[in-house]
């Protein structure tokens, strides 16, 4: 945010400079400014409110510890998003390996009869469907899918955040969609019919 005549709020880079000079209250201001953004991304990647809160706090602690490494030539949000995705991906990797060890054979599979029902999409259910079908994605695929479909970031922006090529982002997106459609077909046939009907 660039300060205007109407707003005397310092922008992100100015806040970082103030923090580097040892002003804790500037860091508090930065945390307050970025809390919703960081938490929303964490929640959508992780899918659990309490875990997302813990991970978001961890992100801000890491931010505080690594603020000296921030290069003001780059957008602060890109750097922050990179930190969020790194921490969230690490968390998901650990969680997936724990879950796989415990629940490797547990799969909710709906019957073909369910598929015949008329579908009315309920927003609340979309979230639980997403949490279920996205569990087959790799942490990186899920992160890219969330940033693209829910945070509306372009492939070029995601590539910058993750430090990879744009084509890699597009490949991950393509594979994520494909895997989730397979999962929908298997676990939520009533929704997977939507894709079949529209083609």
């Amino acid at each position, binding site marked *: 945010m660039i300060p205007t005549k109407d707003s005397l709020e310092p922008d992100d880079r100015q806040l970082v400079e103030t923090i580097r000079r040892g002003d804790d209250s500037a*860091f508090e201001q930065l945390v307050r400014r970025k809390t919703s*953004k960081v938490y*929303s991304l964490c929640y959508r990647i992780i899918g659990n*409110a309490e875990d997302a809160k813990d991970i978001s706090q961890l992100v*801000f602690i890491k931010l505080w510890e690594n603020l000296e490494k921030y290069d003001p030539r780059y957008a602060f949000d890109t750097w922050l998003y990179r930190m969020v995705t790194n921490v969230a991906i690490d968390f998901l990797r650990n969680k997936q390996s724990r879950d796989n060890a415990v629940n490797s054979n547990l799969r909710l599979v709906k019957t073909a009869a369910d598929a015949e029902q008329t579908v009315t*999409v309920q*927003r609340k259910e*979309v979230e639980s469907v997403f949490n279920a079908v996205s569990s087959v994605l790799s942490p990186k695929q899920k992160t890219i899918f969330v940033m693209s*479909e829910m945070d509306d970031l372009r492939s070029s922006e995601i590539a910058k955040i993750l430090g990879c090529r744009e084509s890699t982002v597009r490949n991950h997106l393509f594979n994520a969609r494909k895997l989730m459609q397979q999962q929908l077909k298997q676990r939520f046939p009533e929704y997977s019919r939507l894709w079949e009907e*529209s083609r």
Partner: protein
Amino acid sequence: MISCQTFRANLQPGTHDADLLEHLRRCDSCLDFAVQVDPDTFFRALGGDELVPPGGVDAFVGDVMAQVRSRETETATEPRRTFTNMRRLAIAATVAAAVSTGLVVSNHRSAQAPVGVPMAVLKRPLVTKPIVETYESNNATIIEVPSEAKDDVQVVMIFDESLPVDL
């Protein structure tokens, strides 16, 4: 927010239009319609809004700042133990030189022992000649490793950034 009529008239598969996406994410009655037009909007409906952590932003910020302050205190009270690579090498070289000198002297004395002399006679106090006999520096930390017995090799460690590696 645009009207449902405008939304339904303009929605195209794969849209990136901010107004259409905003409507998609706020209007329940249009969600079903949107998914029929473009199933890929199914999960796009979840995005958009910035969410608030459980307990609210104030509590969240308070928790983060408390953790930051606690880490600041820990950092301030912890002694600094950072050594440069040169210093690490100098320390390692000093310790290795002191230990090996002690061992060489010890072995030399054992080898010189005459045949047939009882062990009690052989057990003489070990005398080592230290490599560093005097050392003067304002920055040096000198640590003497305590010996268990009177005759043990005496190990002295010198920590000094200016100490040459090839001592």
